[in-house]
């Protein structure tokens, strides 16, 4: 099925989200839409999927113009969509979720799911999905839930599959598996529209790349183009993917963690006997696959985990058992891993979010009275300094794009003198331009002489920022290795293999080392892009 968008324009009031976008998706192709957050990719796909009426322009399927009034019609025409936030009902089984919307019934109005189960098994076998039709969706890992979404589209005979930021929620391994699935779908003649801003994936999977910037198509790119070229096209200016950072000038060790154990409500040790130090002017990156105790570690330091034993000292002061307010007051800057959940109050203004943990300190308050003019001034200054793109500091922070929201969090946390800076997943969901900015600020803070702890599941990020890398596996420290350690070794360590063993094993299998790394590209490619 050939899909064509001609001159699609979508306006929301005065905002032009899509401006005369032309796009042709050929059968059996992976067509990638590359663009920063807020470039209008999702809006375009929602137009295509019948969720929005285009203000102008038309959609052609096999050269015939069509109008989709709702997603049902788009589905009937063979278009399937996997949203970034899954549209699944957690307490339903896979089969129930898949059948939802066109359920068949037996006598007495009972659901007939047998046909659906059979179809799910068939698709699952064909593509190696390994999905049990009777599993409850809420019990499935995110990667498998995504496959359920894909099955939903395939059951309805989708010929064109739109994947909106499909890897944003996946671990590196799951990402790999998804890319394999996409290749198989392509082999079967399905067209894929892959929306992303992650260059590595885009390069690995695309046949055609359309770059969108500020609602306009700015050009086609070849998948063989270098990541720097792609990033520059996307952002609209030259960007450097390689972080220039001077070697760390480390000072005294001021932050120490000894024997830290966090017990969850099931009595499991989610962080198990962790000990490490961070010196002034040094970045320690905590690497590991999501869910190996990183969240609990950072929360234990902040003081929001209930059952913690061991010791956490900053400048000789014990932080364990102290209130969050005390810990923050001791000079800890904290960027939580989920900014919308823990970092920001979405309905508050940017100005208010800029002082979310400083609201009762001078100069923003005297006694219990707050000073709105000082708060607004502070926000205006920070918005300028951190390049937060917003019409006004009085805008609700929830209306900002992810990158700008993260800048607000960083602006707040870096705006006071720090003795320790902790950032969890500092660039999750951010586009290239914002990532570059965030990384520079983190290194700037390090160069101020602040001990920095970065928690990231992105190996790229870990390797770029770290002076030393600590690898966590099931709450235990696998080892602390220098930043120069190869991806292969780190990949093995993230699977729980001790450093020395990983080193030996990686050098023995050097040529085929890519299989153990989380990312699809050959490791050798990395050097090339950084020239």
């Amino acid at each position: 099925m050939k899909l064509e968008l001609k001159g699609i324009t979508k306006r929301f009031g005065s905002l032009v989200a899509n401006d005369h976008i032309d796009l042709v998706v050929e059968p059996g192709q992976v067509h990638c839409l590359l663009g920063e957050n807020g470039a209008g990719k999702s809006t375009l796909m929602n137009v295509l999927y019948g969720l929005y009426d285009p203000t102008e322009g038309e959609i052609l399927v096999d050269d015939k113009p069509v109008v989709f009034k709702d997603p049902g019609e788009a589905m009937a025409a063979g278009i399937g969509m996997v949203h970034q936030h899954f549209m699944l009902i957690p307490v339903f089984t896979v089969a129930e979720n898949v059948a939802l919307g066109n359920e068949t019934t037996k006598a007495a109005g009972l659901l007939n799911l047998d046909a659906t189960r059979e179809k799910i098994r068939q698709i699952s076998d064909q593509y190696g999905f390994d999905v049990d039709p009777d599993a409850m969706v809420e019990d499935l890992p995110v990667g498998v839930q995504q496959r359920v979404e894909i099955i939903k589209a395939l059951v309805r005979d989708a010929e064109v599959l739109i994947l909106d930021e499909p890897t944003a929620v996946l671990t590196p391994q799951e990402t790999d598996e998804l890319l394999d699935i996409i290749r198989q779908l392509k082999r079967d003649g399905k067209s894929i529209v892959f929306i992303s801003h992650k260059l590595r994936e885009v390069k690995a999977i695309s046949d055609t790349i359309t770059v969108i910037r500020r609602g306009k198509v700015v050009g086609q790119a070849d998948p063989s183009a270098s990541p720097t070229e792609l990033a520059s096209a996307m952002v609209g200016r030259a960007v450097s993917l390689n972080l220039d950072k001077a070697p760390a000038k480390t000072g005294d060790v001021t932050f120490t963690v000894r024997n830290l154990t966090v017990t969850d409500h099931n009595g499991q040790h989610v962080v198990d006997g962790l000990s490490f130090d961070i010196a002034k002017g040094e970045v320690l990156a905590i690497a590991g696959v999501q869910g190996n105790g990183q969240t609990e570690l950072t929360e234990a330091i902040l003081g929001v985990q209930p059952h913690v034993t061991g010791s956490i000292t900053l400048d000789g002061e014990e932080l364990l058992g102290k209130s969050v307010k005390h810990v923050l007051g001791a000079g800890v800057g904290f960027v939580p891993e989920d900014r919308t959940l823990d970092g920001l109050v979405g309905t508050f203004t940017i100005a208010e979010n800029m002082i979310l943990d400083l609201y009762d300190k001078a100069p923003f308050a005297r006694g219990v009275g707050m000073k709105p003019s000082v708060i607004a001034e502070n926000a205006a200054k920070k918005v300028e300094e951190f390049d937060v793109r917003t019409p006004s500091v009085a805008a609700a922070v929830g209306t900002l794009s992810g990158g700008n929201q993260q800048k607000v969090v960083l602006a707040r946390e870096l705006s006071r003198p720090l003795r320790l800076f902790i950032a969890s997943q500092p660039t999750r969901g951010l586009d290239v331009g914002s990532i570059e900015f965030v990384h520079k600020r983190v290194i700037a803070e390090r160069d101020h002489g602040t001990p920095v702890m970065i928690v990231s599941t992105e190996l790229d990020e870990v390797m770029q920022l770290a002076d030393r890398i600590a690898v966590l596996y099931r709450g235990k420290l696998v080892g602390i290795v220098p930043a120069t350690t190869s991806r292969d070794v780190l990949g093995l360590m993230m699977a729980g293999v001790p450093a020395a063993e990983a080193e030996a094993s990686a050098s023995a299998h050097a040529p085929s080392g890519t299989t153990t790394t989380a990312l699809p590209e050959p490791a050798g490619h990395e050097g090339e892009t950084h020239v």
Partner: protein
Amino acid sequence: MSEKTTPEPQAPGGTTPEPQTPGGTTKEAVASDVALDTAGGQMPPSAVPAATQLHGGDREGSVMHKIFTGNAMVSVLSVLLAIVLGGILMAVTNPKVAAAAGYFFAQPGDLLTEVIRPYTALVQGSIFNWAGADLSAQLYPITETFTVATPLICAGLGVALAFRAGLFNIGAQGQIIFGALFGAYAGFAWHLPIGLHLLVVIVAGLVGGAVWGGVVGLLKARTGAHEVIVTIMLNYIANFLLLFLLTTPAFQRKGSTNPISPFLDPSALFPELLGPQFRLHAGFLAAILATVFVWWLLNRSTIGFEFRAVGANPSAARTAGINVARSTILVMAIAGALAGLAGIAQVSGTEKYLSGGVAASIGFDAITVALLGRSTPWGTFFAGLLFGAFRAGGVAMQAQTQTPIDIVLVIQSLIVLFIAAPPLVRAIFGLNPRKKKTTTSGTAGTHAGGVKSGAAA
């Protein structure tokens, strides 16, 4: 004749809403989610991004949040719509109107007159009585409105404040009773100098309400008990405790067999503002001060900042070092104190003694008032005035036109119903920002349907 005319509008009324397919609503819901997600600030009604709502986990909470902080336009239109439907209800139930409707086609003006007359009486009884003999008689209605509005405003502020901190305070009723109980006791049992006495009564009332509200906060913060259940139960306890105490020698009026307290000392009463011919008392000034205080608390104080942060995103508040448990207890105590002030307005202002019905249904109306005021201090203030006007005018309406005062209750309930369903209101007035086509076709259908259901109620 009337039998013949009534079924007629029902037939089209019953069928027209049908074209709204059930599938349409789910699609709209998805579309609105996506719209929030991608169009961001372009959609004025809610600044909360869909992502936060999804991550928030507490879906019920976010729905409640939307209802309580919806936009002003919806509030105003809801009132308008409720008044129109109330008018139709009056028309249908009034025997005179039924007669008028019989010859409707001959004299359409008569029907309209019969509908307008009760509302005219309502205005006359709540704002300005142009038929009054002298100026004081003419102004009496508006002072009545202020008097009746006073406890509604205070208790409404309590509900609104708690709501801004993410707590659904159903317990204003109990808190009013406790405020009245403490205040009344200080008012009739102690005999203090003028000036000081009233101050002590007010403080006692504030403390009473604060204790009863604070208990809720304490239970919620320490044990996680849901405030809705706790407040409902505490309402019962307060109510029956009051009825019991009024039969004990400490509270019951000497020589009376009725469960009522002695009159409060004159020194314990709010001064009359406009002389003895009006009931308006200084409690109304206290209500204005309370509104200013709540505004300052929420918008200008660090305590209010904590309340709002905890209400909007407790996780982020906790991560920012805000003590969520302390905020919960404190906000419930202050909310209780505000409701307690409503109790004082009753015993020290309007009633001058304590009775089992001291709180009437103020505590529940306060929820509606806060809802209509979108949980903002001044919104609550004006919503309280409106409800005060309904109450004050309702009495006049019943006296003059024999329209039952219950119609006022129906109008109040309709207001809540419409505020809780903003898309319905927007659709009826053709304000739906999204699909213009569906709006126009939907208007006729929903309008007819809405009218029908209103009439049936």
